[in-house]
């Protein structure tokens, strides 16, 4: 009979080149973006309100710090070893390579664990993932930023960007609404935005208390304070999902083209890489094709908002 001795050494079973480019496991940069996180130290924690804090992270490795480039509107996966990962939108300046700032609300398992962390603790971030606000496309136009509640967190990156390139944009408006005056975030930056960035800004709350002197009502009420040409305006809308519908339809009535309104959708991503399908809306991945969508795409996506 035959010699039936076949030994197949490990890794040598199928020698043929497979139908795909194999990631180079030795090359750090290729593997890093998928599974290996950048190790960060929490350098500062700024309490913003009862539930929200601003975490300032610094990537420890200088090379990794240099590699971590993001665009306004992108998100990262924040991982606390042992507790889990959570998608968080980046709310720091894109030109700031030294620190990453994340505005986080204490809401779930991971963020609760993060709120226990002290300054100097180590966390890990993966990313950045997703699409960004088309800041280059907006150049030479008016920009209308509408933020509701925690929606101010992803709005800070475009604000910083506009501040860096202020001469390229025309009038910039920031409308910011919150449920209660105590939930208004980044109040210490309002003057800076108004005076340094030359942003025309207005705020509104839904439920005013006795200390509140400003306006109260829905955020769309603020639109009549400003005059701008809707045909020449880009809008960015961030906030809770319920806000998108009435704000965007209001802007649509004003005459802002649908493909010039951008919203940042929210889903619970588990991988950030278009694999786990947890964030899928119809045939679209929020993590790959989003989180920034123009309103036209959102209208075409079923069950998006």
């Amino acid at each position, binding site marked *: *009979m*035959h*010699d*039936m*001795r*076949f*030994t*197949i*050494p*490990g*890794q*040598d*079973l*199928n*020698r*043929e080149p*497979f*139908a*795909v*480019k*194999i*990631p180079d*496991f030795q090359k750090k940069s290729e*593997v890093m*973006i*998928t*599974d*290996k*996180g950048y190790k960060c130290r929490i350098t500062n924690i700024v309490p913003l309100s009862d539930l929200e804090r601003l975490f300032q992270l610094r990537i420890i490795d200088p090379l990794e710090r240099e590699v971590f480039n993001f665009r306004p509107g992108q998100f990262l996966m924040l*991982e606390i*070893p*042992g*507790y*889990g*990962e959570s998608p968080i939108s980046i709310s720091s300046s894109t030109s700031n390579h030294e620190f990453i700032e994340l505005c986080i609300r204490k*809401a*779930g398992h991971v*963020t609760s664990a993060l709120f226990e962390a002290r300054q100097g*603790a*180590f966390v*890990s971030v993966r990313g950045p993932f997703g699409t960004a606000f088309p800041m280059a496309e907006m150049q030479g136009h008016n920009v209308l930023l509408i933020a509701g509640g925690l929606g101010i967190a992803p709005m800070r990156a475009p604000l910083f960007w506009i501040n860096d390139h202020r001469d390229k944009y025309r009038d910039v408006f920031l409308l910011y609404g919150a449920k209660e005056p105590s939930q208004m975030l980044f109040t210490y930056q309002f003057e800076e935005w108004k005076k340094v960035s030359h942003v025309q800004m207005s705020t509104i709350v839904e439920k005013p208390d006795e200390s509140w002197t400003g306006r109260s009502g829905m955020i769309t009420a603020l639109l009549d304070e400003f005059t701008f040409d809707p045909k020449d305006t880009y809008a960015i809308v961030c906030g809770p*999902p319920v806000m998108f519908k009435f704000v965007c339809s209001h802007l649509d009535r004003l005459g802002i083209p649908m493909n010039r309104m951008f919203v940042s959708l*929210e*889903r*619970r991503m*588990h*991988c950030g*890489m*278009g*694999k*786990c*399908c*947890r964030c*899928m*809306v*119809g*045939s679209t991945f929020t993590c*790959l094709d989003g989180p920034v969508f123009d309103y036209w795409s959102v209208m075409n996506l*079923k*069950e998006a908002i």
Partner: protein
Amino acid sequence: MIYKVISKREFKAFIDALVRNNSSFGPRKVDTGSNGEPIYQFMPVKSVDEINFDYTVTHSSAKHFFLPYRDELSHFNFSDGNWEQEIQYESPPIILIGLRPCDINAVNILDDVMLHGAYPSPYYLARRKNTFIIGMDHLPLPDCFCHSMNRHTVNHGFNLFCSDIGDSYYLSINSSKAFNFLKEFRIEEPSYEDNCSLIERRKNIKNSFETKIEVSGLPCFLDIEFDSPIWQKWGDKCLSCGSCAMVCPTCYCYSVEERFDVDLKGSTRQNHLYSCNLVDFAQVTGGHNFRPKNGDRLKYRYYHPYRGFAANDNQQICVGCNRCGRACLADINPKDVINDLRLERESCMICVSPSPDKT
């Protein structure tokens, strides 16, 4: 691809040589179902006698060799206020014997998902590269609808494919490794008769499909039927157990979770396979659920294979093995749902449209 013919006796000797020295998995009868039919699964085999070559179809699919139920993504070692992340991609080489064409097609689809996307998965790649696949064709079960999905034949993605032509197997050799193994055995060039019987076999398989689903234009059709009451009707039956996704050869949705080691000196990040039918699939932090109803989730379960994937990758992800239909506790199967969906609108069109010619 090289084509050869091997006698069944010689083929058994070949498989025996292969399985005796390698970690191999083949179809074995593990249980008997409530209807008296045997239940087959891919199980570890040590000799050729343990393999049921004439099995019908396995209960679970072969995807678990590439996407295990639980997969460790990375490990964190804690030390005094600090941690180190450790990632391993290694996977031991294995041999899979007796995969059906639809199973191999499913693996090819998973390749598209896992390797051709924006972020190729190294975990999947390591497993895929270290797997030696021997495929075998079979006569379809009454409820298979691979032919409707055009997945009843397979052209690539295997190392060796065997078609049963009576006394011998017609081999399609798709890798040099497989060819090297076969060198030790008596294989012959296919004769004219062999070629004829292969074509006869293929024809026989093609004509044996009893279940047919009309899938042409289905993506557009699903768009139109997004708000159809059909989804609620089937959703009311659905138990949201996720059995269908567990046995499906192409369902790959997963969930990532992290857990501490028992000794608290480390933690692991694992992914585990998930199902879009489970209640919290689309739930976000704060408790909002984007698909709170059974019908919504069932609809998504059909939209992902039949519509979403077609829009993204120009192919439908379903291979038509009907494992989900067999595993479903509530007796929901794709054939009934899709036919129901088509029928609904068509019957309604007959009602509303004036048809004077109709007698």
